[in-house]
């Protein structure tokens, strides 16, 4: 077996791994990034391409069980209300996301104090604020300042054009006197509204560093340790050759499913239930997925809703904080999306029997295409021990590593939030003049926010990592991805993931002796 030595190994080159690598590239430390997937050409998956919609059905499908890429591992969702969505490869899930970049609210970090639910984060909004700013500057976020839903947000680029549909729905929110604001968007206006992914934000910056080596198509199957220290990682290449990399510090950036999978698979004689899992036993537990509600209004007029960036154009945090009159704690975001493309529209209409082949096909099609406004309800999803990721020893991936099983049930509080969110969204669409409104929840295929499975906290009995992302059981094993979220809030996590990765990595540079 070949052995190689590095100062730091980062496992995963998605949103968090890339941000972490960029911060660490400021040092002269010898860094290795290992990515199990390959590098794809961003031009292959671009809204401008005629094959865009077809790609989303297979090669770039959200669900790895359908996509079946070489580096994908099967996820057993049989015991889950929601199917897991991810992307394995350089860029991680930023390859498929919609570029919506909101922050958590200050109250999200203190839910125990504010609402007597779950746990407080061991850090505050104020501590994370400068890293949100740093990240938003690097990515280049569009938005409008002075948003009543947040403390001041600086460095925003001009808001994305709302389009006809965004304007119409914003007026409806205004009539109701409800909060509504242009979304925080990572969209490249000069490149046909493509989303800004790791490829066009952090990756070019990382590649400038001579100290960083990127190895792709290499799967880390085990983290190697004794009882006190991590020693390195064991990998397999695509020819199933075993490779060992030694390092002073290992950083995990494999998302809320990949990270617990690796920790659980790394059991050894010192950590019999998975590495870093002795003190709390919480590795893989507390999975949060942000169950989604979907409400769609169909209008008489053409709203050009398929034109523009795919993601959210405006959003509302009117019902984000806890209201004592409600029968639930915490709240939700209403995200106003763009309409879908012609293929997706036709497939969706066919699936729900709203279009028939024959003499009225296009009549039905054009009654809907470009005439819809969808609103997604993102609900707070509080952590539960009964929602978890575990290894599926019966099913192995192409490298021989066990795949995963998900057990996840939408809880009562979340169901109530979704119910209220749908009611509110229907009201906005009614006021906007929708002639038909359709809604359901939870949406099965939307498990794309993977959080909480190696939770952050001050007490090693009820958390896996400390406020610096260090595992309580192994100080030189650090986690920077969304698995460390203590709670999930009710917004897309990307901005918080990258801000946390920057904060944790900056601390590594400042306090090297603590690892």
């Amino acid at each position, binding site marked *: 077996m070949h052995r190689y030595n590095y100062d730091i190994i980062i496992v995963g080159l998605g949103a968090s791994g890339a941000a972490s690598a960029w911060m660490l590239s400021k040092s002269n430390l010898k860094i290795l990034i290992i990515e199990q997937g390959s590098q794809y050409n961003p031009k292959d998956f671009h809204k401008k391409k005629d094959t865009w919609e077809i790609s989303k059905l297979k090669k770039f499908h959200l669900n790895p069980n359908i996509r079946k890429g070489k580096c994908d591992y099967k996820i057993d969702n049989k015991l889950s209300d929601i199917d897991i969505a991810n992307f394995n490869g350089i860029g991680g899930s930023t390859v498929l996301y919609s570029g919506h970049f909101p922050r958590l609210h200050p109250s999200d970090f203190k839910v125990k104090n504010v609402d007597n639910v779950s746990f407080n984060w061991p850090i505050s909004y104020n501590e994370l604020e400068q890293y949100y700013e740093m990240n938003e500057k690097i990515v280049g976020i569009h938005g409008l300042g002075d948003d009543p839903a947040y403390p001041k947000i600086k460095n925003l680029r001009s808001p994305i054009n709302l389009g006809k549909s965004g304007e119409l729905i914003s007026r409806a929110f205004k009539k109701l006197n409800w909060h509504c604001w242009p979304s925080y968007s990572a969209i490249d206006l000069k490149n046909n509204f493509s989303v800004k992914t790791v490829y066009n934000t952090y990756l070019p910056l990382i590649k400038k560093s001579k100290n960083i080596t990127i190895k792709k198509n290499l799967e880390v199957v085990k983290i190697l340790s004794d009882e006190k220290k991590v020693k390195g990682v064991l990998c397999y290449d695509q020819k199933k050759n075993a490779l060992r990399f030694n390092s002073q510090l290992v950083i995990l950036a494999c998302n809320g499913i990949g990270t617990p999978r690796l920790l659980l698979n790394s059991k050894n004689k010192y950590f019999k239930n998975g590495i870093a899992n002795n003190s709390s036993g919480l590795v893989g537990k507390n999975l949060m997925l942000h169950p989604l509600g979907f409400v769609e209004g169909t209008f008489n007029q053409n709203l050009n809703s398929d034109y523009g960036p795919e993601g959210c154009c405006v959003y509302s945090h009117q019902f984000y904080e806890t209201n004592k009159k409600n029968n639930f704690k915490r709240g939700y975001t209403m995200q106003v999306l763009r309409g879908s493309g012609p293929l997706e529209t036709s497939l969706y209409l*066919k699936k729900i029997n709203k279009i028939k082949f*024959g003499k009225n096909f296009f009549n039905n099609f054009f009654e809907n295409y470009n005439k819809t406004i969808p609103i997604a309800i993102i609900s707070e999803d509080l952590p539960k021990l009964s929602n978890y990721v575990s290894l599926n020893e019966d099913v192995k991936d192409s490298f021989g590593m066990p795949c995963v099983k998900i057990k996840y049930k939408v809880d009562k509080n979340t169901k109530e939030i979704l119910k209220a969110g749908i009611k509110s969204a229907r009201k906005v669409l009614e006021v906007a003049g929708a002639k038909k409104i359709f809604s359901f929840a939870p949406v099965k295929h939307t498990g794309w926010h993977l959080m909480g499975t190696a939770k952050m906290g001050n007490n090693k009995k009820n958390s896996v990592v400390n406020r610096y992302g260090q595992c309580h059981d192994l100080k030189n094993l650090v986690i920077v991805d969304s698995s460390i979220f203590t709670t999930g809030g009710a917004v897309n996590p990307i901005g918080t993931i990258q801000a946390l990765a920057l904060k944790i990595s900056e601390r590594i540079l400042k306090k090297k002796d603590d690892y």
Partner: protein
Amino acid sequence: MTIKNKDNLIKEISGYFKDYKKFKMLSFRQCAKESVFFKNNYSKIYRLFYLKNKNSEQIHDLNELILCSYFSSKNVIKSIKKLNNFNYVKRKIDIKNLFNRNKKKIYLKI
């Protein structure tokens, strides 16, 4: 598959998109000529199309293959783009009027 069989299949599927002229769209026959997806999948479509007693999964698969064949055609995409009056970029929205930047903060201050 013989050319005759392929022609019959295209003819049958063309009947699925009967009102194309009224909406200035292309016929299935026109799009089948250049749809890469259709070329790559027509044997599968043929098999499913003429399969007797199709189950719901097979019906779903066939529908998906037909819709993908049609809507992935370059000319169909072009005609849809032409039909849309994309005045999106030209529209100027009065942001100041729509979003009040002096409104009271609604987030909980900790």
